[in-house]
């Protein structure tokens, strides 16, 4: 029987011990009328060999196009040791480390992870992960409302330069607690959130201001000014950051005079494959003063009865299994395995490697924008890219161009036309350190060809 080790003798012996005539008898407390599921919709069992072949065929269907898509999920080199280690059975098949003494491996790893995330973001404490970047922002908003003792507001200032999907998710999760988002517009020329646009909200009461750095367009926000404005107005500052970019960019803990209050983001760039969108992991760091408002698991270092250092889950009084309806969040299972990968990843890169990656991402985005904007009809929407993404505008509808590129094996970026109509026929493109000169050239040539075809088609039609 697949995965079931019982021999006929085992079963007979066990039933005898139970004084039961059949296994089915063990289900005799289920009302007879309810019992029995035919599972007609579940196909018969396949052997591993057959499943392997099926999945290999499905995978082959999806191919391996050259990817210039970003928008929240980024292709990076993942060192081979990362998943060699994360796939080890002792990490892969362990539960949440409830029995600390039998889980020191996972616990020490999480402690190291927390330390690294604090280091990266310049904050004092980190949790052990949230589901993903989008839901982490939702949790950050909920947390800010709880944590901001100086405010009674359930309103959060949300710039339009924040990833629109994140805003959707934050809304899905926070709206049920009557938390509202005040949308803040951006500067059309610069593609960022001018502190002036906040001035309008001066005397009003808000729990928090969200700032994404680099923002959804790949541009850099004036984080220092924005943070200072927030603090001057009793508003907590939630930073949404790309962890790779932090090798180059000001740590949120150093934003403005006092630093951000809550920092969150998507951990995927740290060793987690694109993989159709998950499992990724959300990270969250904050000041020590807010630690009891933080959602999620936290690991602490302590000592055993012999005084030797060891690690354990701590501050569990915030959590659902202890505090139940009064917990800081309902989160329980989080993203341990992805965190394992990220911890190995960060250990391999270190500050120096991360900086090399970040610098390459910055440069590659510049190179990409330069190359694409040499194609007739393509223009940058704003200035040069702030990190690895940028918005371009085309002289024609974006969707057919992307479809034509896809047919040539190139994922050309994200069509922004619906989400940001004010930008016109806009396209968000991305290049990370994985892209070579040849890749960028291939995209530019394909785009030129597609634009040219369009031109010819248009001429033909005229």
């Amino acid at each position, binding site marked *: 029987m697949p*995965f079931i080790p019982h021999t006929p003798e085992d079963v007979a012996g066990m039933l005898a011990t139970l004084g039961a005539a059949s296994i089915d008898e063990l289900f005799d407390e289920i009302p007879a009328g309810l019992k029995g599921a035919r599972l007609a919709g579940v196909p018969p069992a396949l052997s591993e060999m057959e499943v392997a072949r099926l999945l290999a065929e499905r995978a082959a269907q999806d191919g391996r196009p050259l990817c210039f898509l970003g928008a929240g999920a980024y292709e990076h080199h993942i060192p081979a040791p990362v998943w060699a280690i994360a796939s080890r*059975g002792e990490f892969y098949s362990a539960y949440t480390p409830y029995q600390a003494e*039998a889980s020191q491996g996972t616990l020490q790893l999480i402690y190291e992870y927390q330390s690294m995330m604090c280091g990266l973001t310049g904050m004092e404490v980190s949790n052990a992960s949230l589901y993903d970047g989008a839901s982490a922002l939702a949790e950050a908003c909920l947390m800010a409302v709880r944590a901001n003792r100086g405010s009674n507001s359930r309103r959060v200032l949300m710039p339009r330069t924040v990833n629109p999907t994140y805003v959707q998710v934050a809304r899905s999760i926070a709206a049920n607690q009557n938390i509202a988002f005040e949308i803040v517009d951006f500067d059309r020329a610069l593609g960022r959130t001018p502190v002036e646009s906040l001035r309008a909200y001066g005397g009003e009461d808000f729990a928090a201001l969200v700032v994404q750095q680099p923002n959804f367009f790949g541009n850099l926000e004036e984080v220092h000014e924005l943070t200072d404005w927030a603090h001057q107005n009793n508003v907590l500052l939630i930073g949404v950051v790309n962890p790779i970019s932090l090798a180059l960019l000001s740590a949120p803990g150093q934003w403005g005079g006092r630093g951000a209050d809550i920092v969150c983001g998507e951990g995927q760039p740290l060793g987690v494959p694109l993989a159709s969108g998950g499992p990724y992991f959300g990270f969250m760091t904050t000041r020590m003063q807010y630690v009891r408002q933080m959602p999620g698991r936290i690991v602490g270092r302590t000592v055993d009865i012999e005084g030797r250092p060891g690690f354990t889950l701590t501050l569990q009084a915030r959590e659902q299994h202890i505090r139940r309806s009064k917990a800081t969040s309902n989160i329980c299972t989080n993203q341990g395995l992805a965190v394992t990968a990220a911890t190995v990843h960060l250990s391999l890169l270190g500050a120096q490697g991360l900086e090399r990656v970040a610098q390459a991402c910055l440069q590659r985005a510049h190179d990409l924008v330069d190359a694409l904007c040499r194609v007739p009809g393509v223009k940058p929407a704003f200035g040069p890219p702030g990190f690895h993404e940028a918005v371009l505008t085309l002289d024609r509808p974006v969707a057919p161009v992307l479809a034509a590129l896809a047919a040539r094996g190139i994922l050309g970026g994200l069509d922004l036309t619906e989400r940001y109509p004010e930008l016109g026929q806009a396209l968000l493109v991305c290049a990370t350190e994985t892209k070579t000169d040849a890749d960028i050239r291939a995209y530019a040539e394909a785009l030129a060809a597609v634009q040219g075809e369009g031109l010819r088609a248009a001429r033909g039609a005229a």
Partner: protein
Amino acid sequence: MAELGLREPVIFELSRPGRHAGTQFPPRVAGTAQVPAHLRRAAPPLLPAVSELQVVRHFTRLSQMNFSIDTHFYPLGSCTMKYNPKVCHTLASLPEFLGRHPLAPESQGQGFMACMYELQEMLKDITGMQGVSLTPMAGAQGEYAGVAMIRAYHRAHGDLARSEIIVPQAAHGTNPATATMCGCSVREIPCDANGDVDLDALRAAAGPQTAGIMLTNPSTLGVFERRIEEVARIVHDAGGLLYYDGANLNAILGKVRPGDMGFDVIHMNLHKTFSTPHGGGGPGSGAVGVGARLLPFLPIPLVGREGGRYRWLTEKDAPQSIGRLSGFAGNAGVNLRAYIYMRLLGREGMIRVAEYAALNANYLMKRLQAAGFEAAYPGRRASHEFIITLKRENRDHDVTAMDVAKRLLDYGFHAPTTYFPLLVPECLLIEPTETEAKEDLDRFCEAMSAIRHEMAHDPGKLSAAPHTMPVRRLDDVRAAKQLDLAWKPAA
């Protein structure tokens, strides 16, 4: 210098300035792109500077300090620690699957989407539901989706007053926490001495303020709620909906379907029943299934099928949806693993899961009873799990459930869940799962008997346990008082 222990320094202690794993750095790219000075990072982040061998050795050694399914029997109640087939990981790690960008066009996703579509369909059939969404990223988020749909349903019917969620005392902590997170208030109701819901209390609680009830059946007491149809009637009659916490689906797979019991919505912990890994704390996947009434409210995206092609169903297709809960489409890779597992099990295999999970649980309960342990619900069948209460041992020998748990580690077994559900004193919630062999259950019984003997004859062994782990018993109080949550370089 001490002999070898399993002690391992914190990775920062291996760090030396100038050391690195340089092959992992990308080649330098020519160019002049720069971050404006005022937005540039002032000092490099505190990260370790170590060699690749140091990284591999450090984390390999750390891994060896874990108990896991691959190394130990792990009867952690309510957690369904069963074998995670290796092939699920191998196949989900095919380069094309790993490399697929979540926003890739549907033309570059037919293979992946076919798997997701079929998974939705299978989960519908298993639960007796009408629609399934795979986006919730763990059980608790599935619960959130479920309660949010219940709220949306009432709102759509103009029933704005329904904001109370009934939760039995035995419920998992995520249930009440979810209700709160969803802006609802929580009304706890007791269970009776047999572990069933107190129907009178339920009747008293149900009313025009009732949004719904959250129930897991079998409950976390390890017993099947026999009057489930009555429960459903009471709640439905009061205008509320029924939420099924499907974390424990392993207990009833192929035996009875939540939809048939009268539930309107269910979340499933694919990372339990469908054997995707726990990874030391995730990832999970908390797919939700709904009956007809809640169909319009399912969280997006869903995978639809039209004319032999698969496509994403989004806001436009589902304007009443409770919306998005994740940046893309949930924990896709976990769903893929669950899909693979389900194809391996097939129909027959799936039915066997509950049968052998129940056989193992009932057998182990019986044997532990025979060894002198007290079952919390001795008159009841165990489901896939059962509770032992040590209140007698606590009284007679001053040992706690925690002592027994820690001592079990020395015998080479992961401990059962302790102190949950909260309403049973000094409890151990024991879930052997179907993938463990009879001999291992027998060995576990032997260990429990040996510990029982120690209670009377060598109680110090228990209170000071564990003795053979990389650390002895840890000081949790100190951990919470003298917070040390991140490594700091020696000043």
